[in-house]
C-alpha cells in the first residue's frame, strides 16, 4: 500500500481548524471551545512528529477534539458518569498501531485504529469516517481478522 506523505503541520492545521472549532463549540459551547481548540491542536502537534503516514488525519484530529471535549466536561463535572468514549489513559500513539495495521485497506485500518486504539464507539467511528455504524463494525472486524491471520497464520 502506498503511504500518504505527512503534510507540513501548517497545511494540516489550516485544513481542519474550522471543523475542529465547530465540533468543540457544538459540544462545549463558545466559552469553553477556545481553550479546547488550543489543547486539541497542541496534542496533535505533540504527536505529529511520530506519525508515519498522512492517512486519516481528519478522523484523527476530530478524535483528539472529542477526547479533549470529554476531558473538559469531566473536569467541570468530576462525578458525572461519562461512558461515551475514551479511556482515562491517553490513547496510544497512532504510530504504535500503524505497524500492526500495516497492509490493511484504508477503511479497515482506520476502523481498527479508532476502535481499539482510541476506544471509540462504532457510531463515533462512523461519524469520523463519513460511514455507517454497521459498515464501521464490519471494517473493524475484517481488519482484526486479517491481523490475526498475519500474526498467527
Amino acid at each position: 500500500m502506498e503511504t500518504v506523505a505527512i503534510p507540513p503541520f501548517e497545511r494540516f492545521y489550516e485544513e481542519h481548524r474550522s471543523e475542529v472549532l465547530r465540533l468543540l463549540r457544538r459540544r462545549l459551547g463558545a466559552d469553553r471551545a477556545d481553550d479546547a481548540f488550543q489543547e486539541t491542536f497542541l496534542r496533535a502537534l505533540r504527536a505529529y512528529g511520530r506519525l508515519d503516514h498522512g492517512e486519516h488525519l481528519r478522523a484523527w484530529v476530530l478524535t483528539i477534539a472529542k477526547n479533549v471535549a470529554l476531558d473538559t466536561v469531566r473536569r467541570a463535572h468530576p462525578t458525572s458518569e461519562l461512558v461515551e468514549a475514551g479511556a482515562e489513559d491517553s490513547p496510544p500513539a497512532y504510530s504504535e498501531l500503524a505497524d500492526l495495521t500495516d497492509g490493511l485497506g484504508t477503511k479497515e485500518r482506520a476502523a481498527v485504529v479508532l476502535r481499539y486504539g482510541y476506544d471509540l464507539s462504532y457510531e463515533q467511528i462512523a461519524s469520523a469516517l463519513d460511514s455507517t455504524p454497521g459498515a464501521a463494525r464490519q471494517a473493524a472486524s475484517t481488519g482484526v481478522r486479517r491481523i490475526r491471520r498475519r500474526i498467527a497464520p
Partner: protein
Amino acid sequence: MTVSPDLDRRFREAATALGLVDLGFDLVQTPIGELLVGASDRGLAAISYQTDPEESLDRLARIAGPRVLRSPRSVDAARRELDEYFAGKRRSFDLALDLRALPPFTVSVLGELARVPYGETTTYGALARRVGHPKAARAVGTVMHRNRVPIVLPCHRVVGSTGDLTGYAGGLDRKRTLLELEGAR
C-alpha cells in the same frame, strides 16, 4: 466556523513557547520586498524570496521536519537583525544558522562565503580556489543558487570573473540593490 485571529495567534504562540515546532516561519518586510524567513531551535534555517507559504511549506518541512508552523515569534531575532542590516546599522549577522543535512562541499563553500566582508565582492572561481577545488567555479555557482539563507550568507557578494553580477535567486535587481546598500558598487 472561522477561527478568530486572536484564537489563531494564541495557538501559534503556545505551540512555539512549548517548543513543539520544528520550524517556525513568518513573512518579513524589507526594502527589497517581502521575505519568507524560517527558524528552528538550532537557528535560522531559511530565507526565501518565494513568499507564498503554500509554495514553500514542503521545502521548509524537508529542512527540519513536518511540524512547520507560521509563528512570528520564531523569527523575531532574524527580523531584528535584518531590519538593522537594511537600515545600514549592521554589517554582519550574529544569528545561529541551521545548515543541517547539507553536503560537506556545500558546507565548506558556505563557510568561505561567510568570510566575504561586507561591501566587498569576490568571484565564483576565487571561492572555488579557497575551498581547494579550483576547477569547481560552476559547482560553487550552484551552491550560491541553492543558498538557504541568502543575505545572511552573502551570496550577493559573489560575482562573475568579469565583474558581471551573473545571477541571483532573488533576481539581479535585488543583488544590485544589496551591493549598493553595502557601498560595493
